[in-house]
């Protein structure tokens, strides 16, 4: 491969849940290499272990076999964004965004400044002292993204972050995320059900098989960086989308 130092690398990674006769092979074995600054999208049928992979990368789960290595000197290099936002109802928007910094014991003055900076970039500056319950779904997810990026993570893990949003809002947030990640160049693992989302955002799209999840195909969307949401109307976009769907359909059909 062209990259001499992968940012993240898995070797023979697998995960099994349960014991004995009730054991379920959820994931792998999986060999995957992610270059620094690369945006990798993973699509696959429900229950194929996509989230399991992300949880292993985030340190929430251990693998059953194999290993996952992250090139970093930090003990907690990753930030994770969840489908149901995972932001706290009992903290204001500012305190939510500051949460990761508070955990890392960043001095309050600096933490506030960084959190406010991210709120401004996400267009949430006017809502700093609001509670999340008063926000719409799109704004909550923006808070979650700001919270993850405020700690300037080396790796960003996103688990179907836009799945709970309506289609219009998804498109808007995809474009915003595209802008953000093209400026920060954070290494990102992005899980989604939406092929369109994967093609718009990803440097690389990986297609996973039904359980136990393995990578069955890999495509690079032929759109140079920096790109914008306009690629959705390109003819190559439609071609790639139907190609990916042909790969995915046999896996998505329930066995």
């Amino acid at each position, binding site marked *: *491969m062209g990259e001499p*130092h992968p940012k993240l*690398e898995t*070797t023979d990674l697998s*995960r*099994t849940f349960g*014991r*004995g006769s009730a*054991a379920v092979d959820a994931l792998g074995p999986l060999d995957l290499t992610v270059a620094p600054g690369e945006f990798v999208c993973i699509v696959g049928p429900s229950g194929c272990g996509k989230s399991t992979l992300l949880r*292993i*990368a985030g*340190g929430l789960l*251990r*693998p*059953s*076999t*194999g*290993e*996952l*290595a*992250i*090139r*970093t*000197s*930090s*003990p907690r*290099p990753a930030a994770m964004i969840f489908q149901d936002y995972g932001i706290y109802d009992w903290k204001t928007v500012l305190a939510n965004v500051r949460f990761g910094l508070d955990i890392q014991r960043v001095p309050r003055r600096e933490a506030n400044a960084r959190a406010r900076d991210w709120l401004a970039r996400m267009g949430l500056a006017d809502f700093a002292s609001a509670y999340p319950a008063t926000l719409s779904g799109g704004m909550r997810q923006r808070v979650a993204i700001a919270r993850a990026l405020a700690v300037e993570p080396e790796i960003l893990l996103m688990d179907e972050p836009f799945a709970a949003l309506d289609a219009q809002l998804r498109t808007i947030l995809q474009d915003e995320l595209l802008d953000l990640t093209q400026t920060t160049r954070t290494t990102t693992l992005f899980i989604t059900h939406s092929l369109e989302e994967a093609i718009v955002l990803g440097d690389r799209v990986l297609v996973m098989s039904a359980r136990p999840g393995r990578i069955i195909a890999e495509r690079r969307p032929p759109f140079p960086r920096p790109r914008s949401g306009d690629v959705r109307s390109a003819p190559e976009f439609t071609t790639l989308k139907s190609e990916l769907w042909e790969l995915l359909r046999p896996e998505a059909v329930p066995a």
Partner: protein
Amino acid sequence: MNTAVRKERTDAAAVLVRRPGPRELHPVRTHRRRRALELSLAVAVPLVLVLLWQLAAAQAWIDDRVYPAPSTILADGWDRAAAGDLWPDVRATLKRVLAGYAIGTLAGYALGLLMGSLSLVRAALEPLLDALYVVPKLALLPIFLNMFGLGEGPQVALVAATVFFFVWISTMSAVMAIPSGYRDAGQVFGASPWQMFRHVLLPASLPAVLVGARIAAGVAVLVIVASEQIAAANGLGHLIFDSRALFQNDVMFVGIVCVAVLGVVFSELVRILGRLLTPWAPRDRGRGQS
């Protein structure tokens, strides 16, 4: 390529590796050890306390006339059980608890259901019941004695009143918490009130009602023991306080142990019954998960 990767990995300082832990490498063994540890802790902690008590009594650190040794209590309990002295009291207590529990549960469930479904009934009765709820039920015993005279009546009524409030509150809040989507689906199909109850309200509220019923089971035993000491000629509560008055402290402890066993068995039975009645509900993780 593989060798290059291996070489890079030797500078371990710059690489964070997520590896399988003992639980992943030996899942069966780790789980078995964990279970064994939990079980032995559950047995060992009470056992150690009892042994400590035994030791303290044997070494005369405590006065064994006031706190008889566990072995004395066990021997005494065994003798009384074998001689048949214990059973009349156990049976009397059990009868009162079961009768009061049945009455209280049924009444509490019916009223809770009614008040949860009909806001007018709720408006009419809730302030009154809230006021009665905070009155210590034992303070009602004199009233029940006046109403029912001596005998079983006041004891059963007291248990029923106690159980009633627990079941009533949990039923009412459970019914009110049923998501409106459940009712709506039934309503669109044109469900009659009985069909609505049978297919939607009953199963939807049952898990929460059973939690209330289980708490009430423990409290029912608690209340009956207290009331028997005041106004009964038999039963475990009577036995405990009567033997204390006669300085038969070992008999008193036999009574206490019997009450504890009765409480545990009763609330476990309610829990098992609840599990059979609601196979769809998530298991409560409280204790003794199996």
